[in-house]
């Protein structure tokens, strides 16, 4: 417990330093990973991509049964169709992305020097539509989640490699994401870290909490509770609401920066999206 507190203080101390100071994301990532290694010495690093099922054998058995007939399979197929259907102008998604949009999920989100902002995969899917004269899709579910699922599927086993370029704006975005992650919020006064760094494996009533490490790798996710696919930002909004905090806008700067930090912490783990969860 004392160690936990020291870690919290350590992070808030770092967070309050001026941005010109030597914030070192790579050292912070290593400390983050080591925290989980110490907490769960018997869990292999690769297993973190399985979220809560890495920690709980009983839940894992049920989940593996579900994965035999993955509930997201049809969404991946529909996503592929949507992805391959040309726009009215004859172009398609493949024209907007590197490598025709195949096997690139592991590079998102990334810092875009031109706009000075973090960009996510969903954001670029909609940008692609706009640039080709199509209406943007809704952010949190439906077609965008299907297209993103297909793109994740083509990227399975690629290794997450989020970069923080030597640009003070990129570091600032990372810092803001980190602060969001460690800040207490909402009427119930919880930080993301309270549940997913300090309490993974514990029961919050009937829910077992998943570790933050590896949480991002399987998104978008088919959640039984939703009965459909949802994007990362849908999940962020859910976790904000659960502590009675007002959720932020999907694809707004707060969640994009959060996703930047959150995904950077899982660098080195493979893409296994889309996933299925309770």
């Amino acid at each position, binding site marked *: 417990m004392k160690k*936990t*507190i020291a870690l*919290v203080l350590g992070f808030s101390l770092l967070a309050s330093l001026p941005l010109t100071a030597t914030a070192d994301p790579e050292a912070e990532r290593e400390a983050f990973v080591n925290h989980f290694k110490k907490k769960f010495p018997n869990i292999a690093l690769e297993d973190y991509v399985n979220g809560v099922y890495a920690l709980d054998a009983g839940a894992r058995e049920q989940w593996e049964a579900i994965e035999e007939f993955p509930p997201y399979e049809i969404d991946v197929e529909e996503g592929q169709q949507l992805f391959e259907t040309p726009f009215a102008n004859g172009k398609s998604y493949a024209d907007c992305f590197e490598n025709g949009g195949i096997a690139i999920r592991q590079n998102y989100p990334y810092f875009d020097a031109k706009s000075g902002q973090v960009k996510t995969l969903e954001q670029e899917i909609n940008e692609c539509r706009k640039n080709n004269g199509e209406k943007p899709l809704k952010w949190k579910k439906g077609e965008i989640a299907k297209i993103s699922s297909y793109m994740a599927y083509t990227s399975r086993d690629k290794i997450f490699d989020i970069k923080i370029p030597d640009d003070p704006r990129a570091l600032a975005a990372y810092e803001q994401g980190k602060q969001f992650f460690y800040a207490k919020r909402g*009427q*119930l*006064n*919880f930080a993301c870290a*309270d549940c997913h760094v*300090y*309490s993974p494996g*514990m*029961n*919050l*009533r*009937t829910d077992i909490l998943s570790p933050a490490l590896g949480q991002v790798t399987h998104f978008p996710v088919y959640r039984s509770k939703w009965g459909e696919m949802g994007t990362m930002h849908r999940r962020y909004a859910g976790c904000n609401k659960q502590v009675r905090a007002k959720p932020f806008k999907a694809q707004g700067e707060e969640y994009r920066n959060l996703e930047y930090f959150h995904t950077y912490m899982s660098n080195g783990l493979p893409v296994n999206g889309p996933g299925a969860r309770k």
Partner: protein
Amino acid sequence: MQIAVRALTAASALALVLGGFIPSLASAADTNASVLEEGKKLAFDRKKGNCLACHHVADGISPGNIGPPLLSMQARFPDKATLREQVYDATTKNPNTMMPPFGKHGVLNAEEIDKIVEYIYTL
């Protein structure tokens, strides 16, 4: 309300001492029983205390285990005011605690907290 509860507690203590022989005190004891019952309901209600999210509490179903089981409260909190403060604002004792500051953030009002405290003080 706090005063009312204290008066009730005093009355029930008296009832205990007198072994419940005096019939006029029986109704006070009844009221106290209903305070305890309401306290338990508030403690278990997901939209109110939801203490079971984190604590094992008596016969509560599927409790969490993030906080310590709520047991032997009188022994651990000889001063009831300290216990009340823990429920009102757990961050005074530990700024990084997971436990929500129920009173300070208005999740529960003073009356509700008093009832919950009365209830868990019997555990």
